[in-house]
Every structure is written in C-alpha cells, then in structure tokens.
C-alpha cells in the first residue's frame, strides 16, 4: 500500500476554496469525483482537497456539491503506522487504477468540542490521484475502529 500526502498549498494569490474552516488555498478545478457518494451526503459527488499551514497535519476534503460538507482528513499511517488498507476485489478496477498507480488513502477525522478527536479507520476514502476518482470503502470488516482515538487526551 502506498500513501502520498497532498501537495503543499499554492503561493498567495492562487485559487481559494470556501470551507467550513474558512477560505483555504486550493484549486477548485482539481476535482475528485466520488464513484459512490459518501453515506450521509448522497447529493455530493465532487470534492477537492485543500490544505493550509493552520490545518496541518489535517487536510480538508471539501465537497463542491450541496450540502458542501467540509471533512478533515488525515493519512491513516500517521495515526496508526500498522494500518493495512484492504481494497475490495474490484477496487482497482472501479478506481481505474493500474497496478502501479499510487492510491491516496484518507481517513475522516471527527473533532469534538474540547479537542477530543477520533479517526474513522474502518471506512477510509481511497483516491486514484491520476484519474481523480475516489470512493469511501464500506465493508462489514470490523478490524479497525470507526472512532480510533487521535492524539493524547
């Protein structure tokens, strides 16, 4: 499994994407199309990844279709170095990924008031960066937690 981090933010003056965390530098044309919408946000198919120094180590996965959800995401290996991603049998085919196409793995972060945070390791989002298509993996496998604790309390 390979995991690559998103590119650093564009220099000042570059395109801006509106997110719940404020306007962030990012190219709204760099759209990731979700093959299946994320459960809970069935009308949103297009997303863009945006970063900022203030959000690091998180990146924002910003939905471009209503209701324009803003997700914080993080590389699962940063949270759990032994994390083993499992693609379903037809995963690479659906993502139109050749065997040597790198896949970007992102896990959704939940932050509660007070700073308690957890990461959904059970249903990661996987993106074929070359084709700019992705999907959230939904399976009955309970190896990993939906609320894997992040950071110390």
């Amino acid at each position, binding site marked *: 499994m390979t995991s690559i981090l998103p590119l650093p933010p564009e220099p000042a003056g570059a395109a801006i994407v509106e997110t*719940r*965390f404020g306007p962030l530098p990012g190219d709204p044309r760099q759209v990731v199309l979700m*093959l*299946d919408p*994320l*459960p*809970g*946000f069935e009308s949103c198919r297009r997303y863009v990844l945006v970063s900022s120094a*203030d*959000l*690091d*180590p*998180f990146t924002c996965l910003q939905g471009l279709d209503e209701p324009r*959800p*803003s*997700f*914080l995401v993080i590389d699962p290996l*940063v*949270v*759990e*170095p*032994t994390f083993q991603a499992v693609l379903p049998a*037809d995963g690479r085919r*659906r993502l139109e990924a050749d065997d040597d196409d790198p896949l970007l793995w992102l896990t*959704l*972060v*939940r*932050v*509660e*008031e*007070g*700073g308690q*945070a957890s990461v*959904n390791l*059970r*249903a990661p989002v996987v993106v074929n960066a070359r084709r700019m298509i992705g999907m*959230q993996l*939904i*399976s*009955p496998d309970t190896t990993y937690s*939906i*609320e894997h604790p*992040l*950071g*110390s309390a």
Partner: protein
Amino acid sequence: MLVFTRKRDEAIVIGDGIEIRVIRIGRDSVRIGITAPKDVPVHRHEIYALICAANLSAAASHKASVESLAKRLRAVPIERAKPTP
C-alpha cells in the same frame, strides 16, 4: 415501503437492472441474492447507517477546537501505537 411476500427462488425487479432474489429461507434468516449494475452500491443496512452517522459526525466537527488540536499535534508528534513485541 412496498411489501412483497416471496417464496424461495422468487425475485423482485427494481428499476432497470436491479434484481433481488430469495435464495434460501432458514428459520431465523433469509439468504438474499442481489443483481445490480456495478455502479450501484449495495450494502447491509446497518453498516451503511453506521458509516452514515460517522460521516455526519465528522462533517460537524467542532470548528473552534480544530485549529488548537492541529497546533497541538504539530507541536508534539502524534502518539504512535506501541509496536507489538
């Protein structure tokens, strides 16, 4: 909700290309076969609902706490799980 009574091997057709068939009927469970186009997601309801709730929760992350958490994580390396011996 449309409700049908089906016997073993009987099926239901939905839209264009989705078929639900009763494969086997047991005492406490029913084995169901689904035929659907590859681009139509099919999931056990309770699993879909669980991920749905988790996604909604993630999208409602407490904004004000995010930046301070990010700052804290940058200052101190994220605690790693202890390697198994």
